[in-house]
C-alpha cells in the first residue's frame, strides 16, 4: 500500500517537471506579448501578427514535418532491407557492429561527414573528378544546402536508420522471429516472402511508437539542418535558434512566438497521439 510520504514524493516527481515546463511556456508567452525582457514594450500582439503575416513559421513547420516524414519512411525501408538481407544472406555480426558504430556517431559529426562527402568540393566529387566523371566541381549535383533538402534527408537517414535497424534486430531476437520465418520457409515460402508476410507485421506492431519518436526527433533535429539544410525556409529548430540571437534585439520576442507556437502544436500532437493510444488499449 502506498503511504502519504510516497504519495508526496510521487507528486513531487510529477509536479516539478510539470511546473518547470509550464513556467517556461508562460515565460515564452509573456515575452512574446511584450510583457517580459529587458527591452519589453508592454502588452502587444505585434510579434504574433508579424510572425503569422510573414508565413516563415508555417513554412518552417511544413518543411520540418515533410523532411522528418521522408527520413522516417526511408529509415524504416532501409532498416527492413537490412534486416531482410541479414536473414536471407546472413550478414551476421559485422552488420551489427557497423550499425553500432553508426549509432555511436554524434549527429554533428554525421552532418559534417555528409558535408565532406557530398559537397561539390567533397570526397565523392573529387573521386568523380579523378576518374573523369566530372571535369569541374560545378558539374557535381548540388546536394548540400540544396532546395530539396537531399543532403539533409541523407544525413537524417544516416542517424535514424541504425537506431531503427538495431531495434528490429533486438525485437527479432527477443521474439525468436527466425523460428516463424524458418517454419514458413520450410513450408515453401521464399525467404523474402517469409520476412514480408510474417516478420514484418510483427516488427511493425512493436515499432509504431518508436517511429513516432524518430519522426519527432527528426522534426526538431538541429545539427543536420544547421550544417547541411537549406537556408530558406529553415528547419524549425534552426529558425528558433537563429531568431533568438540574430539581428535586432527588438525582434527577440519573435523567437519566443516561434517557440510558444511550437510548444502548443507539439503538446496538441502528443495529446492526440496519447488519446489514440488509449482508444487502441480500450479496443484491445
Amino acid at each position: 500500500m502506498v503511504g502519504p510520504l510516497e504519495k508526496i514524493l510521487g507528486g513531487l516527481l510529477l509536479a516539478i517537471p510539470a511546473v518547470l515546463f509550464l513556467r517556461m511556456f508562460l515565460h515564452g508567452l509573456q515575452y512574446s506579448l511584450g510583457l517580459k525582457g529587458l527591452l519589453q514594450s508592454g502588452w502587444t500582439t505585434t510579434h504574433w501578427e508579424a510572425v503569422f503575416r510573414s508565413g516563415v513559421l508555417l513554412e518552417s513547420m511544413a518543411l520540418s514535418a515533410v523532411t522528418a516524414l521522408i527520413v522516417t519512411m526511408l529509415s524504416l525501408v532501409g532498416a527492413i532491407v537490412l534486416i531482410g538481407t541479414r536473414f536471407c544472406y546472413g550478414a551476421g555480426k559485422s552488420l551489427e557492429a557497423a550499425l553500432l558504430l553508426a549509432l555511436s556517431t554524434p549527429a554533428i559529426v554525421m552532418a559534417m561527414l555528409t558535408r565532406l562527402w557530398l559537397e561539390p568540393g567533397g570526397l565523392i566529387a573529387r573521386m568523380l573528378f579523378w576518374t573523369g566523371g566530372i571535369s569541374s566541381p560545378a558539374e557535381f549535383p548540388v546536394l548540400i544546402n540544396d532546395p530539396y533538402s537531399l543532403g539533409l534527408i541523407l544525413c537524417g537517414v544516416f542517424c535514424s536508420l541504425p537506431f531503427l535497424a538495431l531495434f528490429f534486430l533486438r525485437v527479432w531476437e527477443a521474439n525468436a522471429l527466425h523460428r516463424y520465418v524458418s517454419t514458413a520457409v520450410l513450408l515453401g515460402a521464399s525467404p523474402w516472402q517469409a520476412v514480408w508476410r510474417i516478420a514484418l507485421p510483427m516488427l511493425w506492431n512493436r515499432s509504431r511508437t518508436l517511429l513516432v519518436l524518430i519522426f519527432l526527433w527528426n522534426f526538431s533535429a538541429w545539427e543536420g539542418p544547421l550544417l547541411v539544410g537549406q537556408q530558406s525556409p529553415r528547419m524549425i529548430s534552426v529558425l528558433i535558434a537563429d531568431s533568438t540571437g540574430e539581428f535586432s534585439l527588438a525582434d527577440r520576442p519573435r523567437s519566443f512566438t516561434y517557440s510558444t507556437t511550437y510548444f502548443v502544436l507539439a503538446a496538441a500532437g502528443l495529446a492526440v497521439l496519447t488519446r489514440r493510444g488509449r482508444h487502441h488499449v480500450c479496443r484491445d
Partner: protein
Amino acid sequence: MQHPHNTHEPVIFLPAVSPCGLVLRVAILLMLHSLNGCEETDRQPAAISPSVKWADRVSQSRGTTVQLAMWDGDASINQWMRESVRSSLREHYGIELKFSGLRGHQLVSRLMSDLEANRVTGDLDLVWINGETFYQLRKINALAGPFTELLPNARLIDWQDPFISQDFQQPVDGFECPWGTVQMTIIYNESTVAIPPRTLKELEDWIRQHPGRFTFDCSFTGMTFLKSLLLQFSEAPEAFATTLNESEWDRCSNALWSWIRKLRPHLWREGRVFPDDVAQLHHLLNSGEVDFSMSNNDGEVDNKIRQGILPPAARAYVPDWGTIRNTHYLGIPVNAPNRNAAMLVINHLISPAAQLEKMNPSIWGDGTVLDLDLLSAEWQQKFRGIPGRERAPSRTELRKHALMEPNAEVMIRIHEGFRREILESPQ
C-alpha cells in the same frame, strides 16, 4: 435561531486535498510568484572603481582564471591566443586564460539572458567585440566601464584616429578597449582572374561574363561587403553616420537589393545559396568553385596561403569604390566574475610586445592600434621592421580607399534585409 454548528466546537475549514494535490498547488503558487519582477529594465552600467591601484589589481589577480569569449573561426588566431598569449599571461601575471567560442550575436543573446535572469555573476570575464555587438551590449547596459583610462598601456593608443575612437560611429567612451585594426580586402585567384574588377560596373560585367564564379557569405564578412556597396548607392554617405537617415536608407537599401537580385542568377549556385561564413568562401576559392573570396583582415591572404587554406595564386586588393576599415575591441561584461584580471589581460594585449607579435603576417597580420610616435625609438624600429605582406597592398595604400563604418543599425538592418529580401524571396 442559532446555526447548528455553533452549538459544537469551532470548525476549521480544510478542503479535501490529496498530498499530491497539495504539492502541486504550492509549486504553482511558487511559480506564479517567481514570474513577477525578474527583470530590471532601468539597469545602469556597472562602474569599475578607479580608486584601486594597479599594483593591487595585479596582486589580486594572481592565481585566478579569465574566461575570454571570442570568435574562434581562424586557426592561426586561435593558435596564437592559446599558445603565446596564454603562456605569457601565466608567466607574467599568474593568470590562466580560458576560451569560449562565441560569435557576436550569440554573445549578445547570452548576456541578455543573464541580465534577464538577474544573474549577477556570469561566466565570461572578457569579450572580443565590435560594431553591432558593442552597440547592442551598450543598449542593454551589459558592459562594465568605463575602464580604458585605468589601463597603463591605453595611453599608447592612437585615440586621434577616428577609425579607432569610434566603433561603427559610436564613441567607445571607455567601455571597450581597441585591440586591432583591419580593412576589408577582396581576394581573387590570379591564375583565373587576370585583371580584377576595379569599379562596381566592372564587377557587374565580370559576374555576368563568368556565371557561378562569384559569391559572398551571409555572415559578418559578406554583410560588410554589402555595406561598402550600400555606400556606393548613396549620394550622401554621411546619412549613414551618427543618426540614420530613414529615407536615404530606404532608397539605398532598395538599390542594393535590386542590384543583388539582378545579378543573382549569375552568382555561385545561381544565388540560391550563399556560403555560411568566410571560412566556407575561402574553401570554395581553394577548391576552384569560385574565383573570389574576401576578408576583413587585410593581412589574411598571406597567412592563409601559408596554411594551405587559400591557393598560392590568391591575391588581395581593394577596389576603387573602397572597403570598410574598422577596429575590433575588448570589453568586460557587466557580470564578469574577475574584472581585475580581465583588465590585466587587456592591458597585456595592447602592450607593444603583444601588438608587435600580433602584427607579424606569419602570426596574424592584424594592424596595431598603438600610435607609433608615442613609442620609444626601439619599439618604433621593431614595428617598422615587420616583414611586409607579399600578396596584399601595403596598409598605406589600403587606407587611401578606406570607408568609415556606417551606423551600427545599418549592419543590423542589412542582416535582416538580406534574409528577407534575398534569402527568403524566390528568384
